[in-house]
């Protein structure tokens, strides 16, 4: 598969604030690529650069090998599904979908192609409806049909499911993936929802601070995160300071653990990632570490417990009930330990003493302080859903 879109050394700033710095990325034909990151990470700007709504300060955008920096949006073989849809309120469903074809192809062809689109998005019979009278999910479908009718090479989707409720979002994820596979169009998908990214993408591009943190398949970025940011943003992670004693031997929390990673310097300081679902809770005498349970939350599929291990708060997911204030043994298999090089994010994330959902760190008003003055965020129902779903997915693998 060839490189359809290539970004070379792209830098972009708004009012002196750098949004993207020296970004390099290529996207292959027929690929489902997701740009994933928290708000303000530069993912939407990247999409707008490809769509032609922004021009880079420096660097080149190549499309099929040709530089398209100066090609205006209306001449690019790229169409966009906008955040909150941006449907034309003065046109009905039919005219919205037909917009790109009007005055360009014969009327009967427009009719048949709109019909084809309406079939694809399951909106037959809605032709003459006012777009303002449609539900969020239906508007979403119109937006997708409108963007696909001109048979673009690339479809850009800017948080397309952000305004939908959870159930509808799941259905649409599935449908979008089907549409992508059926049409063979390259999808570039922007989201801050790591679960959405994991379940739909061929390739995930994790971004933060205007830089790409990692590019890889969903399993790569989940199982082999490159740095503490990726490990923390995608799924839940306990990130502990460690020292690499030698290949396949890592020292943390006062003892040496066997692991599967190597290739580090002798005695190199590293970040050690242990996923909450990979930790086994065992009787004290069989534990490699011992911890004190400080909080237990029932999540349906499992319990989520916060455990104090030598002053560092771990999150552990276990199907066996453990009581608050009990002492437990912790057992970690060698393949549950993932070693990462130190990065700018080291030490800033990965401890669950200030557990929060990365998505609504600031916007969530339901914050409370614990006795140390740290912010504890309530476990809201949404987070609970995505966590248990993730666990279910893990179980299937």
């Amino acid at each position, binding site marked *: 598969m060839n490189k359809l879109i290539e970004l070379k050394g792209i830098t972009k700033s708004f009012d002196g604030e750098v949004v993207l710095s020296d970004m390099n990325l290529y996207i292959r034909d027929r690929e489902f690529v997701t740009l994933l990151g928290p708000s303000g990470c530069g993912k939407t700007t990247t999409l707008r650069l490809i*769509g*032609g*709504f922004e021009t880079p300060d420096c660097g080149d955008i190549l499309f099929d090998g040709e530089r398209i920096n100066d090609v*205006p*949006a*209306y001449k690019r073989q*790229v*169409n*966009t599904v*906008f*955040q*909150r849809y*941006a*449907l*034309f*309120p*003065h046109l009905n469903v039919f005219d919205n979908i037909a*917009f*790109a074809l*009007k005055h*360009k192809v014969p009327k009967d062809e427009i009719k048949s192609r709109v019909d084809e689109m309406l079939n694809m998005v399951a909106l037959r019979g809605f032709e003459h409806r006012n777009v303002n009278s449609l539900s969020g999910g239906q508007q979403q479908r119109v937006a997708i049909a*409108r*963007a696909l009718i*001109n048979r673009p090479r690339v479809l850009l989707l800017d948080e397309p499911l952000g305004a939908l409720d959870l159930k509808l979002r799941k259905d649409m994820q599935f449908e979008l993936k089907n549409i992508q596979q059926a049409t063979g169009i390259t999808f570039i998908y922007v989201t801050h929802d790591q679960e959405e990214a994991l379940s739909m993408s061929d390739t995930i591009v994790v971004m933060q601070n205007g830089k790409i943190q990692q590019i890889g398949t969903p399993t790569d970025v989940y199982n082999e995160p490159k740095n503490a940011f990726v490990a923390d943003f995608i799924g839940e992670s306990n990130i502990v300071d460690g020292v690499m004693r030698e290949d396949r031997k890592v020292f943390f929390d006062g003892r040496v653990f066997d692991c599967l990673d190597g290739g580090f310097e002798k005695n190199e300081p590293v970040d050690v990632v242990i996923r909450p679902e990979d930790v086994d809770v065992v009787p004290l005498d069989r534990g490699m570490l011992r911890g004190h349970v400080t909080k237990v939350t029932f999540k349906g599929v499992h319990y989520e417990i916060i455990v104090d291990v030598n002053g560092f708060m771990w999150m552990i997911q276990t199907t066996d009930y453990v009581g608050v204030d009990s002492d437990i043994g912790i057992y970690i298999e060698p393949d549950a330990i993932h070693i990462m090089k130190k990065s700018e994010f080291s030490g800033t994330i990965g401890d669950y003493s200030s557990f929060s959902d990365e998505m609504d760190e600031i916007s969530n008003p339901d914050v409370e302080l614990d006795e140390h003055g740290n912010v504890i965020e309530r476990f809201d129902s949404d987070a609970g859903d995505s966590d248990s779903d993730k666990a279910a997915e893990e179980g299937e693998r």
Partner: protein
Amino acid sequence: MTGQTLAPAPRVRQSRKPAIVRAVTVAPHGLWCLLFILAPLVFVVYYTFTDPDGAFTTANLANVFSASYFAVLKRSVLLALESTAICLFLAYPLALAIAKLKPRNQSLVILLLMLPMWINLLIRTYSLKLLLEVNGPLNDFLGLFGIKPIRFLNSEFAIVLGMVYNYLPYMILPIYSVIAKIDPRLKEAAQDLGCNGFQTIFRVVLPLSVSGIVSGITMVFVPSISTFFISKSLSDGRIRLIGDVIEQRISLHNVASYEIGSALSFVLMILIIVSMLITNRFGDKDGGVVL
């Protein structure tokens, strides 16, 4: 019976204040409307349909459509339409351009546009008259290029110019305020779907700003068709519009002239109501007129 079952719904909305309090607070407004809006209208209708003896007649109305008055009526409608059209063609691109500026500059330009409105209409019109005089600044300026003095005044051109000059802001403001509120992503969506700048304006911005155009047209056409001062001062009373005739008739202070003045006012009112009904019909599609 059905009326009774429906009755409780609106009652919920009523304030809990006692009826007497409501009556007292509403009274001044009601009195005002009665004295200064309803009563004059009743008089206009009364004088239109009565002769000096107070008997019913349609002669006054027929008189309006006699040759001399009808010419004035026709001229008034034509000049008002002309100035409204010119205002629209000047204002729309300007409103588009203003809406493209940075927000801070937008409010500055709007302030500059509003600035002349702080000066009395009479003074503005007198200054325009001075500018247009045969030996006025405009002809002095044109003289620099070897153009002989032009007699601008006393022409329909001068009157239309006066209307456009005075009423242009009333066209720009409503159009601008509607355009400025259009979601920028809709324009991006149009470009995304293959529209260049012009196509974006004609296929998205224009249809979405119809309500602004409608209120602009109403706000320029209505004062244009009923003006008397602009035409009087810019033509030295030589070109008369319906407003001038009404003013002249009413100021004669005799019953006969009240009657023809009222009949003219009555016809003018009907004209304005009809034109507003027509324009509002276009505007209503987008959810009403934005003033």
